[in-house]
């Protein structure tokens, strides 16, 4: 008998598959609050985009009445700047609400469940930090993308040139060249994906940290995510893959199947417009359904990493309710 398995109900570190199972379980048990938050988050984001378009449209209209084409362009530019504000607000809201799902799943795991309302009230003062977090993540991903492209070009190019050179000397030029190109491409794409996924894993739980830990701001949460994930990169990659695999059936039904089906519809502008609208709505439904799963995974992963790196579960075993959050 293994006493550690039977004596304590507090979950310890989890293996990657169990992270995803636990997240899915939490999602199923708390389907309604999660889906509400997810829908609300998506509405805010869409609202931001719509506001941008509307503001631009109105300003273009007004300015083109005032003056000619040049004024219309000017109006569009002003509209872009003005309309960007609601978009920023909407995306900050989106970040906050989706991070709230992660926080809810974490608080369930540590047996200190919270209500959606309480979490939202607690997070609202941090709205600007969520906006900043979105901006920081954007910068990080741009940088990661540049590094990934560079690394892919260098490694893939080097391997391709070397193999092409050697093989064309050994066998013949066309075959060697083709082989080199293929090998270089494979390595390049591999390196590119690896770098991006690596950075994604390191920053994956940043917004959940911001939502859960009281005295964190955007940049310190990012640092904390970086720190917590330091030794777990491969495990997180497996979590990514497993979550992706599990969300696939949903995405399949809402995104891929309809677009396949719609491809066979007759060419007609009315039908086309209708089918496009339908597929946009369906893919929105798909992303609303899938978002809570990813957020719950973040919450569970945060718990797992804290247990692994900081012994959170050991702390919780004895300290029952003197407030962790």
């Amino acid at each position: 008998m293994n006493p550690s398995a039977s004596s304590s109900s507090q979950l310890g570190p989890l293996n990657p598959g169990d992270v995803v199972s636990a997240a899915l379980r939490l999602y199923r048990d708390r389907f309604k609050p999660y889906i509400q938050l997810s829908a609300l988050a998506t509405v805010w984001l869409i609202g931001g985009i719509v506001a941008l378009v509307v503001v631009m449209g109105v300003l273009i209209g007004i300015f083109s009445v005032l003056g000619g084409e040049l004024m219309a362009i000017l109006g569009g530019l002003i509209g872009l700047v003005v309309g960007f504000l609601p978009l920023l607000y909407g995306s900050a809201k989106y970040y906050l609400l989706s991070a709230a799902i992660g926080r809810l799943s974490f608080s369930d795991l540590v047996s200190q469940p919270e209500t959606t309302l309480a979490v939202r009230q607690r997070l609202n003062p941090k709205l600007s930090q969520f906006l900043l977090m979105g901006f920081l993540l954007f910068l990080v991903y741009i940088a990661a993308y540049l590094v990934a492209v560079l690394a892919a070009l260098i490694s893939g190019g080097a391997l391709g040139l070397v193999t092409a050179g050697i093989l064309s000397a050994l066998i013949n030029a066309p075959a060697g060249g083709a082989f080199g190109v293929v090998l270089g491409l494979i390595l390049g794409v591999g390196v590119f994906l690896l770098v991006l996924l690596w950075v994604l894993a390191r920053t994956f739980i940043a917004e959940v940290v911001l939502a859960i830990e009281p005295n964190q701001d955007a940049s310190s949460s990012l640092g904390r995510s970086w720190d917590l994930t330091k030794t777990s990169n491969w495990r997180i990659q497996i979590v990514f893959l497993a979550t992706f695999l599990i969300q696939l059936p949903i995405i399949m039904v809402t995104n891929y199947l309809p677009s396949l089906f719609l491809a066979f519809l007759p060419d007609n502008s009315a039908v086309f417009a209708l089918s496009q609208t339908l597929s946009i709505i369906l893919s929105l439904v798909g992303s609303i359904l899938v978002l809570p799963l990813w957020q719950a995974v973040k919450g569970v992963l945060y718990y797992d990493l804290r247990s692994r790196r900081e012994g959170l579960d050991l702390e919780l075993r004895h300290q029952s309710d003197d407030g962790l959050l």
Partner: protein
Amino acid sequence: MALFKTITIRTPESIELEFVLAGIGSRAVALMIDYTCLGLGLLALTVLYTFLLVQVLSMESVLAVDSNTVQLWITGIFAVLAFALYVGYFVLFETLWFGQTPGKRYTKIRVIRDDGQPERLVQATLRALLRPIDDTLFIGFFSILLSQREKRLGDWLAGTLVVQSDPNTSGQIQITERSQAIGKDLLSLTDLTKLSPDDLATMREFLQRRSTMSSKAKGQISDQLARRYRDQLELERLHTEMTTDTFLEALYWAYQRRSED
């Protein structure tokens, strides 16, 4: 809240066995690993096949037989081999490793029969034969998700369950001689019955996992645990200076010693 489903199986000898179901995440990870292994095997087979075919063509003038016949034979043999690999991979591993494949071994899950017995050739074959159907349109996925005992069609037919295998208590705990000596002192000094098996489990977890913790957190937890057990044991003061880690090691060693007697 129970995140993982537990089931109890009563054996014919009326012994109750408790199992934790594998969960869809671990099964997805296991499937990914197994399909990667299988894919690599099939790739190797294809490379070998191409190589042989090229060799045969280049030797055409030397061989007495018509090269078309040889090509057909090689193709035939490799088609059979590929099928055997696809089906055999799961059947062979699950039979020989008592319900585990490389993927299942990595994720620490295993297939058992509904009555708790290990999986045999029959069950492994049935599961493998229904695998292509389960993979089509995520039938297996939905079946696992929606059924009470997380069964895919292959599991229904073969009468099997996928459960978590016993967590192997890896991570040996090294206890230095100094800690052992202090442990001996503790045995004579205090009444260790004031500690519960739960406390022992917590100490064990900490000592096993401390090497993967960040140094700051390690110090904090170690301090916290040592303080708690010191108070619990009503130890006012110890005659030797020691770190909290040494104290916990000694305590763990002493507690184990006590329960052995």
